[in-house]
């Protein structure tokens, strides 16, 4: 096996957490490429994404769900957006939905139900329903790590750990630095970074009308929660100021 020499081999200590690192050079190119560009989508380091052991499953699942060509077009668009110093706001609505589905897969281990418009636009042949591609995918979901938890029913932290206060979640700037990510908006349709102390209801889940509703189809929370001690000043969603027009010529699929 020939391992191509890379500049990274010389100065591994200067690399940010998000960088592929020397190990990546031993992996198939497309998997390295996939993980590298999933770092800004997920907010997790390449190390974390590799460690799930599910990257191949996710790439295959996304290709099957979106279609080989359409996924390739999305991937090209996303890489171009990154190269040009943009965030997800540069993606078309359909590509934005594909990006969300891919993140949902990384975060929960399940492929979600897509917006019907995107489902139709992608001309998908499979049913637009949520499913878990493998039992191990659920176990590797990243969402649990956002609040220093663990997947329910796996990776137990030990007797009595639930009695201890968990650490605070890291801030956005700290994450960007650690992951070596560009200082661009990692949001669409929102005026500014969402302040954690004042999360608007439309970014929170509402009641699940029945247990049969899959998590990706749960509606957002009611706009005005009942009166409490906390003042109410939600971040208003920005009018469709985000670029909805195709950003790249390859947008034929959307």
């Amino acid at each position, binding site marked *: 096996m020939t391992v191509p020499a890379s500049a990274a081999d010389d100065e591994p200590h200067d690399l940010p957490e998000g960088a592929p690192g020397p190990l990546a050079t031993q992996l198939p190119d497309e998997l390295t490429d996939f993980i590298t560009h999933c770092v800004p989508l997920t*907010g997790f380091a390449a190390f974390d994404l590799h460690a799930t052991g599910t990257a191949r499953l996710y790439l295959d699942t996304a290709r099957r769900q979106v279609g080989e060509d359409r996924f390739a077009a999305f991937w090209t668009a996303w890489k171009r957006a990154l190269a040009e110093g943009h965030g997800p706001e540069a993606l078309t609505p359909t590509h934005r939905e594909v990006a969300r589905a891919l993140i949902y897969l990384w975060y929960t281990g399940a492929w979600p139900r897509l917006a019907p418009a995107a489902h139709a636009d992608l001309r998908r042949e499979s049913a637009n329903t949520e499913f878990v591609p493998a039992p191990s995918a659920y176990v590797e979901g990243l969402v649990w790590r956002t609040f220093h938890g663990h997947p329910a029913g*796996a990776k137990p932290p*030990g007797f009595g750990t639930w009695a201890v206060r968990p650490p605070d979640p890291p801030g*956005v700037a700290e994450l960007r630095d650690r992951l070596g990510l560009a200082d661009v908006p990692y*949001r669409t349709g929102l005026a500014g970074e969402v302040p954690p102390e004042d999360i608007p209801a439309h970014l929170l*889940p509402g*009641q699940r009308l*029945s247990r049969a509703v899959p*998590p990706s189809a749960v509606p957002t929370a009611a706009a005005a929660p009942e009166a409490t001690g906390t003042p109410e000043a939600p971040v208003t969603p920005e009018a469709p100021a985000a670029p909805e027009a195709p950003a790249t010529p390859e947008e034929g699929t959307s």
Partner: protein
Amino acid sequence: MTETVSAEGAARRRYDAIIVGGGWAGSVLAKRLGAQGWQVLVLEAGNGGTETWPGYLDSLSTFHSAVAKVPNAAYRPNKAAPSPNVLDLAPVRDPQAGEPEFTANGYFVQDGQLPYGTDYLRELGGAAMHWLGAVPRMLPDDFATRSTYSYGLDWPLTAEDLQPWYAEAEGELGVAGHAQEQKELGVVTDPAYEYPMHHIPQSYIDQYCDHRLGDAVIDDTVAQLPYALRTFGLPQARNSTPNPAYRAPYRIQGAVGLPNYGERCVGNASCVPICPVQAKSHPLRLQAAWPPSVTLATRCVVTRVRATSTGTVTGVEYRTYTDPASPVSRSYLAEADVVVLAAHAIENARLLLFSGLANTSGQVGRNLMDHPTLLNWALAPEAGGPVGPFRGPGHTSGWEVFRGGPGRRARAPFRIEIGNWGWGWATGAPMSNVATALGIGGDKDGNVRPDGVFGPELRRLLGSSIGRQLQLQIAVEQSADPGNRVTIDPARYRDAMGNPRPILTYNLDEHVRTGLFAARLVAQKIFQRLGATDYTDHAPHDGVPPLGHFVHTVDEQTLDLAYSGAGHGAGTHIMGTDPKSSVVNADQRTHDHPNLYAIGCGSMPSIGTSNPTLTMMALALRSAAQIHRDLAAARRPVTVRPAAEPANPEKEKVTA
């Protein structure tokens, strides 16, 4: 470990006792009778397999890959012995006024005004395979609500009668609890009593609430009474550390099928539907301790109980199957001196109705109960930091003060569980948090949503919006109402094997609805005191009401409310002293048939606000003692000449 035989093998001989159902009640009864040397046959309708480690891992991986992680998510569907599932219910869009707001599409046929949103599991070990493991004792006044508060039904037993049986049951279940607290609560009266294991630590969420609320006083405006809050730890059938002060050295039992595993809870936080290490107690442990005189046959669906014209029962008819997906079966007959139905409240009623037995009172199937549970959810303030949801057992503490006392006259009592699993039950969190923060799934018109967060901003947002989730699950007492019932209609509704499906007619009466109403107001006040933002919402959404939705008005205040089922099916063959108004006596023997018992939660005339398993186990142990006496009496040598001996001293116990 007990011998498992085929359906044919099971039919080969006569038994002292046949037990229908291999769940908690049947398993503890078989253990006791078997230990006394009686030949016992246990017939389980569902599949076995989880008593082996590979079989158990299969259930675990079924749970991991389920999209909807509901209580039955870890267990495969079985058409031959179908189980109800909470996924069988769906809300109706724009319902007509006064019409039911739901449809039921599964094992249960439902024709009531409100949905019976509770499931159970027909599988070796029964619904105990997915239970939480909460084992609070019932309060003394729970046993006499009719005479004390003028609602519901009284028991023919008192809390004091059950004290020794509760203690026995806690030993069999393996309970970790804080004896001193339970004594202060008034449910443990023996001052020397200790639980087998030290209590499970209170979660950080419990401490968070406790610290911020202290002994705050909350006004219940419905009951018009002030209530001082104080958290009590929940006694749980979950392995912790053996208590050296327990009455005898306690050896912890862990996983069945894998030695030296699961001997302490490690915080998997998935007790419902499955504990991966089996630190949560389940009936397979008791089954592993069955002596050789107990015979088990799985995949044996009892269809009827057979009786003679004089009223004694002779045995049961049952059918077996090979492929659970397309059951083709033949019928068998097993005979015994005593038949015990221990198949779940609804299954017991179904069997009695189909067999045409024990129904002189007309009460078989009536008084169906559950604990309608109100979910309340809120975000703790960011300034207070994360609260650490989705960790540890489902709940470790509660506020008990609303359970008893004179407030019960005005409204049904309730028990407030401080949830440890965030908004999971109410909203599908944390998965639904990911979906809504990303903005996936489209807007109302199906278009791609413009708003959403990604990458580091998503990670930060979720850290906060999930990390601060509080949920209060409030279980409200439902009292006996003969109109809430199980019936059958074999001409119209049968399952794939030809057995009649249960038809449920269910509603909540005014007293229960007012209890849910009061509980909602109390939860609002608790969230206010915590400075938390209350996101609780039970109103219809785009014309679709949530399951269990109803509108209730008290003192000119009107609320949209919705309840969930708690999985606490009870009250279909209630006990009493009068054969005209009850199905079984205090020993759970049917009034009509001297050798037919119906045991389980179905025997309870009321269930208070306690998760019913512990009380069910106490009753089962009490019945085991009586059945032993029955069997022994039947075998006593014939007295040739009249003797001047006194009556059997054990028989003196009068059934209240």
